[in-house]
């Protein structure tokens, strides 16, 4: 069996073949639909092969969704990342991390639909938040927090923060504490230790974290419908794609919008990862050896 021998020399034998079922599954249900969608988006119901894209970028009701989505996703992601750093820096020294992290995992497991329903009740004009604000005399009228930009923003913050925080925490815990101790011995105060030691080591992780969180917030859907103004300020790109697919049954147009959504995410992710290289290149573990 020379062929078998030759293959196993290169690491391909019975065990390697175990990867095949899962790989074929992902190819069939992820790669193929994507390519199918790409081809379908180039076969519009009417007009030339780029008609769907031309329609998207000439109709303000459609291309405006990109701006509206970015206007929600970028601030929400940035806020999440910025807040997660000081919290993670504190929590990593805690002994009983488990309870806090468990509480913070709650919103991830509850999912966006439940958060939307909870916030409708909690932030509404008769909700506890407005009631408390008025009770403390901070506002005279209930502030409007649902069915507008802020409702969606808050829900993105709540569902996004745990995710960002846990990722930041795992990156922060990966930094060797002896590096900071050494800097402290040399007389660096907290602020300069953070700026010159932790932040450069963290930059890479933060860039990846930004990308992962951004991609999630960019595809906001249920909360933009339930908590926002789906015909107005929070008409995000996923709503446009959904409308095309399941209300107008124009799968070709829907695929085109999905492709545009994917490419917009790709561009931002590539830009962030490209900028990362300018900050620091090297291992984040440090220390040993």
């Amino acid at each position, binding site marked *: 069996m020379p062929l078998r021998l030759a293959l196993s020399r290169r690491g391909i034998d019975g065990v390697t073949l175990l990867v095949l079922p899962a790989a074929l599954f992902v190819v069939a*249900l992820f790669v193929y*639909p994507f390519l*199918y969608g790409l081809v379908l988006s180039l076969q519009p119901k009417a007009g030339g092969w780029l008609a769907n894209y031309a329609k998207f970028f000439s109709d303000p009701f459609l291309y405006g969704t990109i701006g509206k989505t970015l206007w929600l996703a970028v601030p929400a992601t940035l806020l999440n990342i910025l807040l997660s750093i000081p919290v993670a820096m504190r929590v990593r020294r805690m002994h009983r991390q488990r309870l806090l992290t468990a509480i913070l995992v709650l919103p991830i497991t509850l999912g966006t639909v439940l958060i939307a329903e909870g916030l409708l009740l909690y932030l509404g004009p008769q909700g506890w938040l407005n009631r408390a604000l008025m009770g403390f005399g901070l506002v005279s009228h209930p502030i409007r927090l649902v069915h507008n930009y802020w409702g969606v923003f808050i829900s993105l913050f709540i569902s996004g923060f745990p995710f960002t925080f846990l990722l930041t925490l795992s990156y922060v815990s990966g930094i060797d504490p002896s590096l900071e101790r050494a800097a402290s011995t040399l007389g660096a105060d907290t602020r300069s230790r953070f700026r010159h030691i932790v932040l450069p080591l963290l930059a890479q992780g933060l860039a990846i974290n930004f990308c992962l969180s951004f991609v999630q917030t960019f595809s906001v859907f249920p909360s933009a419908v339930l908590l926002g103004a789906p015909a107005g300020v929070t008409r995000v790109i996923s709503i446009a794609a959904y409308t095309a697919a399941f209300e107008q049954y124009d799968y070709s147009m*829907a695929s085109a919008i999905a492709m545009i959504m994917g490419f917009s995410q790709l561009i931002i992710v590539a830009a962030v990862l490209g900028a990362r290289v300018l900050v620091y290149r090297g291992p984040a573990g440090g220390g040993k050896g």
Partner: protein
Amino acid sequence: MRRGETVSARLWASSVWVLVGFFVLNLLAMIAAVVVNSLGTRWFNTWLPQGFTTKWYFSAWDEFQLGDVLFTTFQVVGAVVVLSGLLGVPAAYALARREFPGKRLVVLLFLLPLLVPPITFGIPLATVLYRAGLAGSISGVILANLVPTVPFVILVMIPFIEQIDPRVEAAARVFGAGTLRLFIHVLAPLLAPGILAALLLVLVRTIAMFELTFFTDGPTSQTLVVALYYAVYAAGVRAGQSIDAMAVIYMVTTLVWLLIALRFVNPTQIVGRARR
């Protein structure tokens, strides 16, 4: 904290804690608001409802046909958990134990469905499933939900498998065990904690997976989270309290499994992607 910290450092530390406290407080209050509303009679212009009742749970159960919906949910979740284990664990084993040409490409193939959000690939996927006549049925929902969970199981399992000493397997081979027997008698017991952890996370994620189910389901294949979405979407038609009763039922279904899962896994794994 350590002695000798300046006032500003302490102030900074406490403001960080106040921030965390504020977040957790609002989060718990939001959940409490749903629970209280589902148990209240009339709630208008006061801190708490006028009285408490459990009748909304019965009316929600009938109105939303929660018996059927829960049955579908468990069918979908059960199938997704079993199938993603069957597909994912062997693939993770191969990736952990063998170096072969194109391995990086295969790993990338498994990373992509976790990096691309469900909405983006859900629409082309739903289109393909509709063309194949699978969407609108329970099998379509199961297939769609497997797309992110199979890679998830693989990426969670790889480190688990890598930490098992290959000499244990070599010894079993020496005594004449084939791959199948090796799997059943040696690997499965050693990997059981890892498999359990991965599958519990798949379970929690699948109960909460909205987008993929929403795109591919039909009238008879709605899961709980999609039923909840429709109820909130059409709010006003039904009593808010019975929607919240359904929300509480949904919450309990997820939280029970989350609590079980947290006994076996580190919370960071729920965010869990490839650790490196």
